[in-house]
Structures are given as structure tokens and as C-alpha cells.
């Protein structure tokens, strides 16, 4: 019988990190995600699993600590919220360029600038289109429940190490702050030096046994060699797109219309679907779980046979562009969203479906 606990989304992230054998967390406080660092410090995981927890002097330092730890094939993590994630973009680009595994959590708040501490989904572009400089991708997972906040931590490490690629958990202030019940897994042991040497022989953790030295770098001064690096990374991205797309379909059988929404917006859309059903409107929900790789194929298949799609995002409309690309503009696709930390109500979503799609 698994342990069941009532937790905030942010606490679930921290608890999952401890229990799945994360080696180190490096972070800097920012609302609405400070509970992650607070929970870790309160739990003292260094006494339980040997996990290192360090409050850095900035998000820039945090992400570069993650770079250093990831380069040793340690399971390392940081978390922040939008302005802090902007500061991490340089580091993320280096991590992607050096092909290192790590997990970064973004509990999104509304921007631009200092914006507000209230929830938003305005960092979609930054997350799925690169964010920092250079041609690269983050694997992006979008939890919509506190349980998924917990579950996606271990899933993220599986993906990060499988592909030697940074993974971002794209959450928001709503899921970070709300409390739900969470089933917790048993504590797992952290990886030993021997395990790392055998499974991740690229790690720069000291030349034990006089092995050849390892180098972690994103630098390649010669263009012909740099392009080869680019091509190899792009090939990796293609394999990820082929194999790692995750989504959830709710009430999609016989639907005339679809909502496409992720994270907390997907939760609200489920209530909006109930309201729509009461009025006889058959609407299904396509919930992308991986925002990159984006579930293009299912959106294309279902979307092109439908009477229209409404994307619901707490933004000015970002994912809507990917939905239009996926459906190749062969079906009406509109966006409905609120900004500035406002959360759309189910009733206004149904109203938007009626005015923008059904009657539009």
C-alpha cells in the first residue's frame, strides 16, 4: 500500500526528488515555487539519502551548479519561476549543447518582466522553442495534477539520461500552490560511483582506474565539426519526437469539437466539457503531456476530422501556433486565454467555444 499524503504541488516535486534518488538540488527562492527549496531544507535529505541541497546566490549560479553536477552524471535539479528561468537560459543552452541530463522545474507566473506572482502559461514559447541561444530543444513535460508533479520527476530523469538532454517540467503557480492527495513511492538509493562508471562512462567525475580523461564542452571552433555536432543533436531530437510523445484524450470519441489545453488549463477544460455537454455540445479534450515533443499526429488526426478546435491557455496564445501547424490549417483553430494571472472560468471557456468556433 503506497503512502498517501496531502501536499502542495511544489512539495510533491521536492518529495519526489528525495525519494527517486536525486543527488543534488541547487536553487534560488522565487514565488510561487519557493516551497520546493523550503521543503528540501526542512526534510534534510542529506541525512536520509545523502542528497545535496544548496541555496545558490542566483538562478545563474543554480543552473551552472546543475551543469557541473550533470557533467558528473549526477541526478541534479533546479527549479524557479519565469523571471528566474529567463536567467537560466544561458546555462540551459550550454547544458543542451554539452548534451547533459538534468531536470529543471518552471512554476510559471505571469509576465512580462516582474509581472505578477499569479499563475500563467506565458512561458510556452520559451520552453518548447529553445529559450536560449542556438538550435536546441528541451524535453518539456506539463503536469496537470499534484500527482503528476510527483510522478514526472522520475520520468524526467529517465528521459534526461536516456537522451542526455535537459528536461523541463513546465508547471504553473496554480498547480504549484494547490493541494491534492499524492501517492508516494518508496525511497530509492542514489547511484553509486560504480553504477555511474558502468552506465554513464562519459561522466567527468575523476579518472578513477586511470581511464582516459573525459571532457564536457559545448565548444567546437571548426564549423565543419560544429555542424556535425548540430546534425547529431538534431538526429537525437528526431528520435525523441518519434518515441516520446505523450498526451491524454478525454471524451474524444464522437466529439464534434476539441479543446487542446495542457496543465491547469486542461483541468479547467474538463469542467467546461461538462457544462458544454449539458447544452448538447460534444467537445473532447486533447491534453498534451509532452509539450516538446508536441503531439502533432493525434491533433492532426482528430483535429482535421472535427468541426473546430479551441486552444485554452493562460497566455496571449502560444501553443495555438503549434496546433495550427499540426492541423495544417485545415480546420478552424482559435485561441482563448486569460493573462496577468487570471484563471479562465469554465463558463467563459464554453462561451468562447460557442462564439469563436461554433458560431464563428
Amino acid at each position, binding site marked *: 500500500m503506497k503512502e498517501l499524503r496531502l501536499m502542495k504541488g511544489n512539495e510533491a516535486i521536492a518529495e519526489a526528488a528525495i525519494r527517486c534518488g536525486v*543527488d*543534488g538540488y*541547487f536553487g534560488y527562492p522565487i514565488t510561487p515555487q519557493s516551497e520546493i527549496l523550503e521543503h528540501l531544507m526542512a526534510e534534510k535529505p542529506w541525512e536520509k539519502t545523502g542528497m*545535496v541541497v*544548496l541555496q*545558490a*546566490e*542566483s538562478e*545563474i*549560479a*543554480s543552473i*551552472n*551548479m*546543475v*551543469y*557541473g*553536477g550533470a*557533467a*558528473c552524471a*549526477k541526478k*541534479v535539479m533546479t527549479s524557479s519561476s519565469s523571471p528566474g528561468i529567463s536567467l537560466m537560459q*544561458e*546555462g540551459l543552452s*550550454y547544458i543542451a549543447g*554539452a548534451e547533459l541530463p538534468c531536470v529543471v522545474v518552471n512554476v510559471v507566473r505571469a509576465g512580462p518582466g516582474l509581472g505578477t506572482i499569479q499563475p500563467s502559461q506565458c512561458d510556452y514559447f520559451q520552453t518548447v522553442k529553445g529559450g536560449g541561444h542556438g538550435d536546441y530543444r528541451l524535453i518539456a513535460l506539463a503536469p496537470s495534477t499534484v500527482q503528476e508533479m510527483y510522478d514526472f520527476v522520475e520520468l524526467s530523469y529517465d528521459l534526461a539520461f536516456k537522451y542526455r538532454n535537459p528536461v523541463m517540467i513546465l508547471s504553473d503557480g496554480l498547480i504549484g500552490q494547490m493541494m491534492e492527495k499524492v501517492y508516494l513511492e518508496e525511497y530509492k538509493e542514489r547511484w553509486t560511483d560504480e553504477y555511474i562508471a558502468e552506465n554513464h562512462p562519459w*561522466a*567527468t*567525475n*575523476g*579518472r*578513477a*582506474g*586511470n581511464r582516459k*580523461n*573525459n*571532457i*564536457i*564542452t*559545448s*565548444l567546437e571552433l571548426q564549423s565543419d565539426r560544429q555542424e556535425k555536432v548540430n546534425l547529431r543533436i538534431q538526429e537525437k531530437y528526431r528520435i525523441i519526437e518519434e518515441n516520446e510523445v505523450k498526451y491524454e484524450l478525454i471524451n474524444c470519441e464522437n466529439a464534434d469539437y476539441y479543446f487542446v489545453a495542457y496543465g491547469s488549463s486542461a483541468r479547467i477544460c474538463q469542467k467546461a466539457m461538462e457544462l458544454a455537454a449539458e447544452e448538447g455540445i460534444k467537445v473532447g479534450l486533447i491534453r498534451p503531456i509532452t509539450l516538446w515533443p508536441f503531439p502533432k499526429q493525434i491533433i492532426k488526426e482528430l483535429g482535421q476530422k472535427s468541426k473546430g478546435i479551441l486552444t485554452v491557455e493562460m497566455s496571449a496564445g502560444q501553443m495555438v501556433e503549434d496546433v495550427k501547424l499540426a492541423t495544417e490549417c485545415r480546420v478552424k483553430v482559435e485561441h482563448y486565454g486569460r493573462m496577468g494571472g487570471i484563471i479562465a472560468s469554465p463558463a467563459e471557456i464554453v462561451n468562447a467555444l460557442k462564439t469563436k468556433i461554433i458560431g464563428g
Partner: protein
Amino acid sequence: MSEIKLEDIIQPENVVYKKTDVLNDAVMHYCPGCGHGTAHRLVAEVIEEMGIQGNCVGIAPVGCAVLAYNYFNLDFQQAAHGRAPALASAVKRLMPDRYVFTYQGDGDLAAIGTGETIHACNRGENITIIFINNGIYGMTGGQMAPTTLPNMKTATSPYGRNVETMGNPLKITELVAQLPGTSYVTRQAVHTPAHVRRAKKALRKAFELQGQKAGTSFVEIVSNCNSGWKMTPVEANKWMVDNMFPFYPLGDLKTPTE
């Protein structure tokens, strides 16, 4: 009397000097006359003499030493500009029994990476920071550095560094010596055999203190940049002695209390 053959002479017992195995045979990209090559060698020799090459992680900066990892037979990470102390902090905390060092220039350590430098030192991270100060940005073509001397001409201070408008040179080594987290802070040079010997001793002490978990050990090496300063190597060394040393005096700034 039989003839002595070369093979008879080249025997291990006759070796009086050899290159350390911690450096490989790659041809260094540094300009002739630059101090980086000597500094690399000293670091490598200390690591070999301490027998820690199988237990050591180096962090390369952005700047002239960006390719340091091409020369050391050590596990190496290449950091973003200025961030080496952040990487080193994490590596050391995750693997406390490894020897971890950064090798950084003045632009990397004292301009863009000031925050990471100060805070790693202030936390007393058990790492060794090696700081090459030549008062200029060498790799990007001789621009003004945080440590460029007053009135010194560079590509971005072509009429000399005007401290009124461009600010004063930053004595970051004096600054980190004030922090309780540092165990040993010293300023050395490598332009004469005597200075090379002293610098090597300082590096050895810095790594030994790391082994004793004494806090951050910090070794500045004042060096020349004959290319950036637009001088011959001999002129550059003379200019360094006449101008850099009065402003950046050599010697220990902080030694561990017994």
C-alpha cells in the same frame, strides 16, 4: 673502452627532467611568451606530484584558457563565461573526495563571474581557484578587462583607461581575502625561474589545503599578454614588472591560521 650508445644513456635512472604525464602532447594554442603554458605546467606538476590525477576534476573558463581541457590528462568541464566556480561548487559538494579546481582569466573571474567568484569563496567551497590576471581580454582581441591598469591602452580604451568614466581596476584577490570562507589567498608570477618555483609552491599549498577541507584556496598569477599589450615577450615581462606588480603586489594575502 667500449663506445657509449644513446640507448645506454636514455634510461629511467638517468632522468633529471621530464614533462609531467598530467599534460598531454597536444601543441598549445597560446601565444609564444604567454604565461598560460607555464601556469598549466605547474598545475599539472603539482597534481602529478600529489598523485591525485585519478581523483581530480578541472573546470575551464571562457577566455584564452577555454581550451585548457585539450592539454590536461584530467577530467574537464568547460563552463559558461564566469560560471566556473558554480560548476566547481556543485562538483565538489556532490563528490567531496575529489580535488576540484577552476582555471580562469581576469575577464571571466573578475567581471562577468564576479558573483560566482565571491559567493563560492564566501561559502568556503573546498575548491582551488587559479586566477590568471593579465589585465586584458586576450582571446577576443585585447579589450579592456576589470583588471586593466589606469591609463592602459586596450582595444576598447584606445586612449587609455580613464578611471573617471571607465571605473577603477578591481583588486578581486584583495576582496576575496577578506571573506571568512577563503583559507589561502596568494598572488604569484611565472616570468622568472625563481617566481616559477614560488608559484608552484603556492599551487601545491592550495591543493593541499583543499585536501584538508580548509575552505577556498585562491591563487592569482599575474601574467603578461604580449599579444594584447602589443609588445615583444621580453618587453611585456618588463612592463609587467614595472607596471602590474606595483598595482598587484606579489605575495600571500592570507595564509591559514594554525
